[in-house]
């Protein structure tokens, strides 16, 4: 039942999250019970981190096996890849739980709060099950549960028509994605005869090429839908913003990573890489998602939608790394493949840290000023210093500036592109170095977007009374954010501590790969860079003496009003003007009354900036199915004679089938 040293804590983790906490919360509404539940969740997450760290060093083997109880084999195994993602889930869960405790108290009534906490712990459980499952059945059960529980968490917040529509799209796309993922597992059945990961891994070699391609494409689509790759990202900017902030932090920071885990598990662990065009498909998807994701983000002025689009961009960067690694595998360069995979996995971990911090920051803003619309915020840094600083660190990390963790993984991705030029394969030699330009453009635009996001939200003068009277969030929320910010800085300045285990993990996945030299050089130089920059900065700070207040210069006018500041829409106007073709905003200008254009009573201007994928890509497909259904509905005419005719026709056609078959 529980094997190995980490079996016990892992079982404790599952039991607490899965059974103890939900039952406790449903049973009683007392405040003490709820605090106990939160404490249990924190303890379980901490145990999860321990299991992940110890799991890293031990030989992989089933940790917890429930197969005797369940109809199909249902067991868990913490090998190196699972350990990394388990660490990711649990390490992000601790600060998010600390943040969520006061947040839920402030936002929800008594009864809803218990349901939210119950679903919260089930949500964590489902993600842990997904990343540590070692049989197909357990993985799929966790996968569907994750979608259901997250949809439940969103719906608890409210039931407006627009929210329902978004959750409906979310559930529909996730279910279709899950069907593709299920197909991936089942395609191995004729060869592995069981859905146990070990059997699938063994069968990976004897699977014919046709099936391998089918599995890869299904995995790409199935996990791409959950990760939010561009054509399949429709649900992401709709579902994340409407979830409560701690939940959208978990969804954006952690749930997307389970999709990356699934894709890596299939393309590297089970299939062990494939022909080169696999890599190019993933590379293209990554580039498109990265570019379009950041461009749409720049157009947004709702902070949470902006962050959701940035998840699409960062997933794009992760897929760039994965694509490069697949290309190197196809060109038989295991060392370079290892470098690219390390870059992708590190960026996955980094993204989990800073994206959840960003969403927690957005949550802090929304609980302090009851709005996340950038047009109404401003001047929050002086009112909410800790949130501001944490948000600033997260912005620097996501943009990939040195001294922060985002830079390490982007730098490794750059170096893997550069290393691509050393390949003998002509196509890769050209495409990969050019990808440097794409990633640089993504990085530049991300910098522009987050200057806007942080600058408009936190700096300058408050643009609304709520922002004016904003007050710092309580201690647990601040400590949660501080924890994540510290982690971002720590990995940014001392990456070595993290890169060595990652290198050993990747050696397991890619046979014949040593430790890439770049990981060592970056680990050596980053501390020096930090010393120089901070030292010079400290030296420069010596010159600063007395500070005198003086009103901002307003070209001699009596005083600046808050409306004179740059808002987020105006800030992004130049970039949106340059990339107008991508946005294709549909503007509607309406003059009332219509017959007298020159004496308008009122003129209203409305422009929707992001291109509507729903109208272009999904609506025709859905309309086709519904029209087919309507045509079928006409078959049920209501007349009994027609029904009898159907039976006789069926009989006659079967008899004819029998007659000719003979």
């Amino acid at each position, binding site marked *: 039942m529980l094997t190995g040293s980490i079996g016990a804590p892992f079982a404790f983790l599952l039991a607490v999250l899965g059974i103890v906490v939900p039952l406790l919360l449903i049973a009683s509404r007392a405040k003490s019970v709820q605090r106990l539940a939160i404490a249990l969740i924190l303890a379980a997450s901490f145990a999860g981190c321990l299991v992940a760290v110890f799991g890293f060093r031990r030989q992989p083997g089933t940790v917890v096996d429930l197969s005797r*109880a*369940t*109809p*199909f084999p249902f067991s868990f195994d913490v090998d190196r890849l699972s350990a990394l993602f388990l660490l990711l889930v649990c390490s992000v869960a601790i600060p998010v739980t600390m943040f969520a405790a006061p947040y839920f108290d402030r936002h929800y009534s008594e009864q809803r709060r218990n349901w939210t906490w119950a679903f919260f712990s089930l949500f964590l459980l489902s993600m842990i099950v997904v990343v540590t499952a070692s049989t197909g*059945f357990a993985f*799929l*059960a966790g996968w*569907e*549960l994750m979608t*259901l529980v997250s949809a439940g968490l969103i*719906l608890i917040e409210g*039931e407006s*028509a627009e929210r*329902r529509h978004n*959750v*409906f799209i979310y*559930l*529909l796309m996730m*279910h*279709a994605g899950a*069907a*593709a993922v*299920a*197909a991936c597992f*089942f*395609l191995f*059945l*004729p060869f592995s*005869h069981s*859905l146990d990961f070990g059997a699938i891994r063994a069968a990976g070699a004897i699977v014919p090429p046709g099936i391998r391609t089918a599995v890869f494409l299904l995995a790409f689509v199935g996990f791409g839908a959950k990760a939010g790759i561009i054509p399949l990202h429709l649900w992401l900017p709709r579902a994340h913003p409407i979830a409560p902030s701690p939940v959208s932090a978990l969804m954006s920071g952690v749930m997307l990573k389970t999709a990356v885990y699934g894709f890596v598990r299939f393309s590297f662990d089970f299939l062990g890489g494939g022909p080169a065009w696999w890599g190019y498909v993933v590379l293209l998807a990554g580039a498109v998602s990265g570019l379009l994701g950041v461009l749409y983000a720049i157009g947004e002025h709702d902070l949470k939608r902006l962050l959701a689009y940035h998840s699409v961009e960062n997933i794009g960067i992760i897929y760039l790394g994965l694509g490069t690694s697949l290309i190197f595998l196809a060109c038989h360069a295991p060392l370079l493949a290892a470098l690219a995979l390390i870059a992708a996995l590190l960026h996955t971990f980094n993204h989990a840290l800073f994206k959840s911090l960003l969403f927690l920051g957005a949550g802090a803003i929304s609980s302090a000023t009851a709005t996340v619309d950038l047009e109404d915020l401003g001047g929050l840094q002086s009112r909410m210093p800790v949130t501001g600083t944490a948000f600033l660190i997260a912005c620097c990390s996501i943009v990939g500036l040195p001294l922060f963790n985002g830079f390490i993984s982007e730098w490794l991705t750059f170096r893997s592109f550069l290393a691509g030029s050393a390949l003998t394969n002509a196509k890769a030699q050209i495409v990969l170095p050019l990808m440097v330009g794409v990633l640089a453009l993504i990085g530049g635009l991300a910098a522009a977007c987050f200057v806007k996001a942080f600058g408009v939200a936190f700096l300058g003068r408050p643009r609304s009374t709520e922002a004016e009277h904003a007050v710092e969030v309580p201690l647990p929320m601040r400590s949660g954010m501080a924890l994540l910010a510290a982690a971002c800085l720590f990995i940014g300045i001392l990456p070595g501590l993290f890169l060595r285990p990652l290198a050993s993990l990747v050696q397991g996945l890619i046979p014949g790969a040593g430790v890439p030299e770049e990981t060592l050089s970056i680990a050596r130089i980053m501390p020096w860079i930090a010393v120089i920059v901070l030292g010079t900065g400290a030296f420069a700070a010596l010159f600063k003496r007395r500070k005198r207040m003086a009103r901002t210069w307003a070209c001699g006018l009596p005083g600046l009003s808050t409306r004179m500041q740059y808002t987020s829409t105006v800030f992004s106007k130049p970039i949106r003007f340059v990339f107008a073709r991508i946005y294709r905003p549909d503007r509607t200008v309406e003059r009332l009354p219509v017959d007298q254009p020159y004496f308008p009573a009122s003129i209203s201007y409305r422009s929707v900036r992001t291109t509507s994928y729903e109208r272009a890509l999904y609506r025709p497909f859905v309309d086709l*199915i*519904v029209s*087919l*259904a*309507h045509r*079928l*509905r006409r078959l*049920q005419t209501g007349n*009994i004679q*027609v*029904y*009898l005719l*159907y*039976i006789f*026709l*069926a*009989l006659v056609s*079967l*008899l004819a089938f*029998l007659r000719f078959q*003979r």
Partner: protein
Amino acid sequence: MLLLLPIAIPVLGAGLILCFRNPRVATRAALLLGALEIGALGAVVWQVHVRSELQQGRYLRADGLSSFFLMGIAFISGLVLVYASGYLRHMGEGRFSSPRWFYALVFLFLFTMISVCLSANLGFLWIMMEGTTLASALLVGFYNTEGAVEAGWKYLVVCTVGIAFALFGTIVLYLAAVKAGMSPAAALDWVSLMDAAPRIGLDPHLVKLAFVFVIVGYGTKVGFVPMHSWLPDAHAEAPTPISALLSAVLLNCAMYAVMRYDAIVSRAVGPAFPHTLLLIFGVVSMVVAGLLILVQRNLKRLMAYSSIEHMGIIAIGLGLGGPLGLFGALLHAFNHSVAKSLLFFSAGNVRHHVGTLRMDGIQGISRTMPQTSAALLVGGLAIVGLPPFSLFISEFAILSEAFTQARYFVVILFLVILSVVFGGFAFHFFRMLCGEPDRHVENSRLIPSEYIAMGIAGLSLLFFGARIPYLFGLLLHEAMAVLQ
């Protein structure tokens, strides 16, 4: 002698109940009779488990497969009787539409279905199957409204025509058996037919002709697509407990009959022919019913089409045949009946409190009727085959079998239709459960009988999703052994 008990109780009970004029007494008597009936069925199931088969004269016999379906009938009829006891409190006192007539017909209906499962002789099986149509036709037309009469008439005529073809199929099989040298008395007996099957198979054309007529005949009762037209009308117009019985139990009995024939024919002429037919009907039913779910306006018709779709899934399971396919088909039959009865119970509550079954008239019931909408949600999630519930297990088994046999065409359709149905159900349930409730619907709480019925159904869905009980597993494997 024990086999006579489960048959005698409903028949005598039906007669007994008729003479209780007072509705409350009739209900209590019905509950008592129901308990007796379940006890008798339990005893039979236990005896079969102990002695692997029970024979009573030439016409009654219980083996592993029949005991599995008997257990299903016992469980669902128990739930229906408990629910009906609460449901009938607002039924009028018409000449024919009073509780005592209702219970009498219900027990007659149970009698016919139990004897279908206990029949050893294919002719006797046909007679009792025709009996189920007759008993339930009156129940479908019980409310005597325009819709009910129309549904009752269509149900009676279409099913009788279907059953007539099944009779012709039985006769052709009987002919083939007699031609192959079996004595007339033994030629309809299932066990001897199974033993003599290879000999009968020497002249395959007659056996194939017989199976074609049987699958069209009993297929009408199961609700396969070209012959399904009666099902949505009958289930939508019948009173709720009856539509639960129809959907959950009657369709399974019809499928039981198809299984019996499938066993004989596949042993006679090899599984290729019957399984291809089952697969064709299964896939066509699933696709057409799955698409029709999208455009339904009436809640009960939505449930009816979902039953057709799930019968399609069971047929696909049977058509695939392997160990997992059979396991999935049988398990799916049981799971579907539990989930479908839960859904019909909640639909009945919604109809009573909101006043209409048209889904655009039902709005925001999660606030006005919290428990019923919770039951509706649990039923909906289960019927769509999502993990925590038991239907996910059986669909998982059927999918594994389909992939092991590398039938990619079936699998693609299967997965696409599952997503389409999920979309349809999500669309309908979101509109009903969320949104602002219209004013005049007052908040309502469940009465104890409804609470028990729905609670047991919901809990068993969850329980079977996590772990199949040991005894149930044994029964399942004995049933599979019979068909192998």
